[in-house]
């Protein structure tokens, strides 16, 4: 670009539009985080489903895998931030939304475990007195609560980044949330796995493919 070139009004407007568009197109998520979380949640749900269906128990809670996945997530975030040459306003908001989502998930786990603790003793008491099993099973309603939460940051990210696979993934989570209210625990787990695959794993794979293409284009431009 030439130094101090005087512009006509039309040229100025064209330049502004061109640069704003260039800035918008400049950020591409690597998709690694989305792939990892989609895979982790899908694996956890499917393993738990097999535990319920085939009536066995692993020596550890499979959902502990989500805690282990936090370590690579932190490393991925640090690496992505270091490699990023530009920081948009959307990035900052979305980082806070996903952080808030993570906090909400752990709060929901804590609340659910407390309710399970209380409810278990009530259900046993009910069974001892009436001889019947409790008419309300809290476990049937846990998955819809999680699916409702899964949908929120996914939908916002999809809308903010104009990335339709994630937008539809978020909507899919909410559809599964409604369906899961009326289905058994086994189906709930299947819906959770499907949501994780469609909301995170598939969009993550698409993002990763786009990122690789962008990097290739950039490398060709710089040759």
């Amino acid at each position, binding site marked *: 670009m030439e130094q101090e*070139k005087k512009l006509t009004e039309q040229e100025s407007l064209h330049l502004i539009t061109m*640069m704003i568009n260039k800035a918008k197109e400049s950020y591409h998520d690597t998709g690694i985080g989305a792939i990892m979380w989609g895979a982790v949640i899908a694996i956890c749900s499917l393993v738990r489903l097999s535990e319920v269906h085939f009536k066995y128990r692993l020596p550890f809670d499979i959902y502990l895998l989500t805690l282990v996945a936090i370590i690579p997530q932190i490393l991925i975030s640090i690496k992505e931030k*270091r490699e990023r040459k530009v920081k948009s306003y959307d990035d900052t908001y979305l980082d806070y939304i996903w952080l808030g989502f993570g906090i909400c998930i752990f709060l929901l786990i804590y609340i659910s475990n407390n309710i399970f603790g209380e409810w278990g003793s009530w259900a046993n008491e009910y069974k001892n007195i009436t001889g019947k099993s409790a008419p309300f099973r809290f476990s049937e309603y846990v998955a819809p609560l999680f699916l409702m939460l899964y949908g929120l940051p996914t939908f916002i990210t999809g809308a903010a980044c104009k990335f339709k696979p994630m937008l539809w993934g978020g909507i899919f989570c909410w559809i599964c949330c409604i369906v899961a209210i009326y289905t058994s625990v086994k189906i709930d787990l299947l819906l959770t796995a499907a949501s994780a695959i469609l909301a995170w794993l598939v969009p993550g794979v698409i993002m990763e493919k786009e990122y690789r293409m962008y990097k290739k284009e950039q490398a060709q431009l710089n040759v």
Partner: protein
Amino acid sequence: MFKDLDPILHSQLRLAVMSLLISVKEAEFTFLKEKANATAGNLSVQIQKLKEAGYIDVIKQFKDNYPQTICKITSTGIKAFEEYVKNLQAYLQK
């Protein structure tokens, strides 16, 4: 009555830099160089002029033992850019 266009902004490279920075929170020097298709020397001079006008903030730091320059538009810069676009639109509607 048309106002004169801001001479600081009415220059190709400075306008390109400001248009890039208005769209993002902050950007590295290398990003601006690549997107504006400018040489490092030319870009440094224009960035210095924008900084002197108070339109951008320039943060110099080290990243992995390499110097890194980060540019950020200031509130004065945002006002000047908005005013520039408003005046530009007025000229075009003439």
